[in-house]
């Protein structure tokens, strides 16, 4: 269903950080078609409104979303108790396309909430280690309190996981600095690496530039972009980025397409 939401109920809601919750949604009746990592859903809080949210996990028909409460709808969803009914539409947009990276080194770079859409990708890649080369996961956040899924990192198992924060807090013994600084620690062969990057736009650009500099081809740098996904069906026009309708042609695009578009201010 793409125009009319299907009822889902909140199965679980746990705080992830001070302003971010992870909710698990289970279909009340019919489930939506399966979501691929990188795709997004439109989640409707009854009587409040609807927002685009990437899938942070899928399990049978259940959908996991990690949501930061920044507006009326996202705050309502963060506050939704188990049992609350919500509406969901989807799946929408392009996925990370892990299948196209078979045999290549995988480099996952996340900034802040950008780790949410990358989580199902990391889990899928970690569960099929024979399909690709080395898997590196580089995670950046503003503060240690903004790090997502900390208890899961060891469950991801095989990947070489590196974490950094912009501002340390008491007790933080990890790295301090921007996420691009972690690239020097990661072992990957640039020309046969596919990178998956999500985070604030400035972080995406800095990361992609650093990867290009190291020799990763632009089309193998997969970035997830954010614009105002409003109808998600390509009819409302809000999510345009130059030639792209991001709800349809994105959110995941190759950096070969994204770079010239992100270089134009207010495009």
């Amino acid at each position, binding site marked *: 269903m*793409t*125009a*009319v*939401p*299907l*009822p889902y109920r909140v199965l679980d809601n746990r705080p992830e950080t001070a302003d971010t919750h992870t909710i698990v949604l289970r279909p*009340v009746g019919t489930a939506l078609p399966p979501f691929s990592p990188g795709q997004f859903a439109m989640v*409707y809080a*009854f*009587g*409040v*409104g*609807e927002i685009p949210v990437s899938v942070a996990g899928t399990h049978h028909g259940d959908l996991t979303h990690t949501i*930061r409460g*920044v*507006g009326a709808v996202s705050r309502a969803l963060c506050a939704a108790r188990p*049992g*609350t*009914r*919500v*509406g969901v539409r989807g799946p929408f947009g392009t996925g990370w396309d892990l299948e196209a990276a078979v045999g290549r080194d995988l480099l996952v770079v996340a900034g802040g909430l950008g780790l949410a859409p990358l989580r199902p990708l990391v889990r899928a890649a970690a569960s099929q280690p024979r399909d690709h080369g080395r898997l590196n996961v580089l995670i950046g956040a503003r503060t240690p309190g903004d790090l997502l899924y900390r208890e899961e990192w060891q469950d991801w198992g095989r990947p070489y996981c590196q974490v950094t924060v912009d501002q340390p807090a008491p007790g933080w013994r990890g790295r301090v600095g921007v996420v691009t600084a972690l690239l020097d620690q990661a072992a990957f062969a640039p020309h046969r690496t596919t990178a998956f990057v999500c985070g604030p736009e400035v972080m995406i650009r800095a990361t992609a530039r650093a990867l290009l500099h190291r020799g990763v081809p632009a089309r193998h740098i997969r970035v997830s972009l*954010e*614009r*105002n996904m*409003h*109808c*998600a*069906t*390509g*009819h*409302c*026009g*809000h999510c*345009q980025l*130059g*030639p*792209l*309708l991001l709800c*349809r042609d994105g959110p995941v695009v190759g950096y070969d397409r994204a770079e010239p578009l992100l270089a*134009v*201010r*207010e*495009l």
Partner: protein
Amino acid sequence: MPSATAPPDTGSAGCVLDRDGMGALVRELRARGRTVIGPTVRDGAIVLAELESAEELPYGWGVELEGGHYRLRRRADAAAFAHSAGPQSWKNFLHPERVRQWTADRGPDGELTVRAEPPAAASFAFLGVRPCDLRAIQIQDRVMIGGPHRDDAYRERRTGAFLVVVECTEPGATCFCVSMGTGPAAQPGYDLALTEVLDETGHRFWARAGTARGAEVLDSLPRRPADEATQDRARRGVAEAAGRMGRTMPPVDLRDLLADTLEARRWDDVAARCLTCGNCTMACPTCFCTTSEDITDLTGDHAERWRRWESCYDLDFTHLPGGSVRTSARSRYRQWLTHKLGTWWDQFDSSGCVGCGRCIVWCPVAIDITEEAHALHQESLADRAGAADGAP
């Protein structure tokens, strides 16, 4: 593309309707249960509205068009279709300003029931669709029902609509359909095509069917076989109209032009004039952008989603948690023009402009899309010449 039936043999010369035949056409379409929408004089303009009879057509009226200027004027003759685009377009009927998409109710135990809005049983007949506007309808088809997600309500309205195209013999001063390749002659996609002819032999319409249902309607009307003189006169009228376009676009690939001029100085010039009011987007027959509004009633247990027209000039259009992407007038005018003439191709494999001139007429400060395109072209030529001169 919606097509009720395969086109019949249209190799025939068609037939001729006189003014009574036009009356019979409206009666016949109404008798078939259709809501006939056509041009009529109302509120000092030629608007599109439901017609109960062909006598409501703007016989004897013309229009005077310029940038930011629209006036009705009396004609010396009794032509019904000797006028060009008015303030509305067919999107007002096929893609209405406000539609309810679904309703939702929350039950006593919190259960959620969502009901899709049942499709309205609209059965329109559009009388007097100009060739440029036929193309505009086909462009909106690509947007609304040509992609991976189809708008079912639009499809219902669209497939149910019977299209009577009237070829253009009287272009306005703001028209440039020839530049956009959309007129003034009718191109495929109509049920019936008419060409109005007025001369010493009388007031008549050369009619051709484009579909079987069009032929069926035509067969039920009082008509006579098309004589050579009427056909010649009709063809000449359309050919002459092609030579009387009030505006032109620069003779370059507009898609390339817009892609290459994203940082042109001209955007600052037009931004100093543009009020970002969005009139051009409302009047444009292809602009399709919308916003969803979720509302509840006083009980809080009944919710509805409404979709309404929205403009890319609105500040909230590009809203993100961190603020809007396009805040300057420069970026918002640039978005509209580059989308219309350039990136529309990337998104929907066609131009978004049909050359109807509405955006010029209904701009309160008379910004002219063709003038802006020419200015961008001149600037890019000058920059290229400058770059060549400066080369070592």
